């Protein structure tokens, strides 16, 4: 809850859309470019941080192109920004290139989905704390659930580049193959886990896939997949850390698993956000007062979105 830093680390800046592609029925990938002050601020963007996108002035898709279940939702005139993570942030000369994946869920993301190269979107960021890498870790286990993937992909790249001393293994779960926001690559291993993720493989990070319906990879939850992996790999709890992002129930079960393994665990959470920078108090997240069982609220946007899994009072 400390807000005493007076140096300007955040920017309100226009970004130019370089591309916005439809990857699946409701999944899009957007690439943005920042220059000037925006580039300056976002150059320091850390994995797990996020930005607030202005969507209010963007067009909706044509009526016939709006999925039936979103038609009524699409009638809302938005005023608030929408928070998104990035799976890749790259400094290219004097500009910063941001890459995000997003799921179309309502009016805001429908609006975002109509932008095309050359359009301008106003961003506020970088926001939030981001993941941190505690000293003396030798193994990082990354668990991504559904659209929790982007910040963890960013983290994977970051660890591969900046922390070669850390071995990384990634586990991605989704409802089914179509919901997996990664490129699947067939591996040579002839097991039920014979797919890995191109995004991690690229950095020589081993990766594994689980789907609820078994349409690809392990059939079951990503936590079960991790436990399966643990039967074959021995870890030193003190030198291991789990990073995870996904729906709350998954985070809670990863937190329980981490606690049972006595392994550090950082969870990246999501809450409905009015501002993203600590002034509206909308994104409260129930936590324990350090060292007690007393419940307090922290702010997902400024205290988080990344928390130590022991801090959060899971439902």
């Amino acid at each position: 809850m400390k807000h005493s830093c007076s140096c300007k680390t955040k920017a309100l800046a226009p970004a130019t859309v370089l591309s916005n592609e439809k990857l699946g029925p409701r999944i899009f990938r957007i690439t943005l470019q920042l220059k000037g002050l925006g580039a300056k601020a976002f150059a320091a963007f850390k994995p797990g941080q996020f930005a607030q996108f202005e969507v209010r002035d963007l067009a909706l898709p044509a009526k016939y192109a709006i999925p039936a279940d979103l038609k009524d939702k699409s009638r809302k005139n938005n005023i608030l920004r929408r928070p998104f993570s990035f799976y890749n942030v790259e400094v290219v000369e004097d500009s910063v290139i941001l890459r995000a994946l997003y799921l179309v869920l309502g009016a805001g993301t429908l609006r975002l989905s109509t932008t095309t190269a050359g359009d301008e979107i106003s961003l506020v960021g970088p926001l939030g704390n981001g993941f941190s890498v505690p000293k003396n870790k030798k193994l990082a286990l990354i668990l991504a659930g559904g659209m929790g993937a982007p910040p963890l992909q960013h983290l994977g790249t970051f660890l591969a580049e900046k922390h070669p001393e850390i071995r990384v293994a990634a586990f991605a779960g989704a409802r089914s193959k179509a919901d997996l926001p990664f490129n699947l690559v067939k591996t040579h291993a002839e097991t039920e886990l014979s797919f890995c993720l191109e995004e991690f493989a690229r950095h020589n990070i081993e990766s594994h896939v689980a789907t609820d319906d078994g349409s690809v990879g392990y059939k079951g939850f990503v936590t079960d997949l991790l436990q399966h992996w643990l039967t074959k790999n021995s870890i030193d709890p003190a030198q291991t850390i789990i990073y995870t992002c996904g729906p709350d129930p998954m985070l809670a079960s990863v937190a329980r698993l981490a606690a049972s393994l006595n392994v550090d665990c950082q969870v990246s959470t999501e809450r409905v956000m009015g501002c993203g920078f600590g002034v509206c108090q909308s994104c409260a997240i129930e936590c324990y007062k350090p060292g007690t069982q007393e419940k307090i609220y922290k702010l997902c946007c400024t205290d988080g979105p990344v928390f130590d899994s022991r801090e959060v009072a899971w439902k």
Partner: protein
Amino acid sequence: MKNSVDISVNFAGRQLQNPVLTASGTCGYVDELSDFMDVNCLGGFITKSITLKPRLGNPTPRIVETDSGMLNAIGLANIGLERFLSEKLPLIEKLSIPVYVNVAGQTLDEYLAVTEALCKCKALAGIELNISCPNVKAGGITFGKDPAQIESITAQVKKLCASKTLIVKLTPTVTEISDSARAAINGGADALSLVNTFTAMVIDIERRKPVLANRTGGLSGPAIKPMAVYLVNKVYNDVAKQAKIPILGLGGIQTGSDAIEFILAGATAVSIGTATFSEPNCCINVIEGIKNYCLRHKLSGVEQLIGSVE
């Protein structure tokens, strides 16, 4: 064309360098927005509501977006008087602009205790009495709907802060807002702030439950602006003009034009709330917009505009 103009206003005896303030609960305690704007450029700062004890606030979800607006039911989450005095006051002391602390409570005694403590602080210009929060079970709006109670609580608070500006923040959800305004003025208010949010509700039709954990919340944002302008104009004409009590106008202001609209309606100064969430430097843009309007209309200042709508 000149390119500078003095847009200072006299607000309850104090000269504000410009008529733009933050709105309580939307801009933090003091420096949370300093990444986006220089707080010392504002006309004044109004803090988040402070209560005697820290308040966790309501369970989540606490907000939901609506058409051109949003509901909030934060429930006055705040760090409480003690931490405010120890952590925030030192920062406020470094500011060069007037700071008003918004005071809330569940009981009369709580209001009085917080007021008493705050009024000892030299660094504070005054307090804004929040008797219009719709999102708490006790206190808040219950004081603010009945003119007799408004007058009584205002009078008792004013006794404790005679040396400071007392702004009374009114709720718009009454049959006759001018009666509320009159009561506050009779009680000794130095200024009126209007409006607070309008009680409202959004239902999640899939879960068949209210979206907000608190069931209902307060509507703010551009959606409410035309109602707020009307209420400011009504209070100005019915009561404030004659009583020479300045109005702090707010409700959906996003632009310099919006601010001018409130000033023409009768506001001496304005506050920016919800707009800050999407545009964290909104206050600064509004100040620029007001200046441009004055330059374009060849006005020597904004005071001549106050209440001047025909």
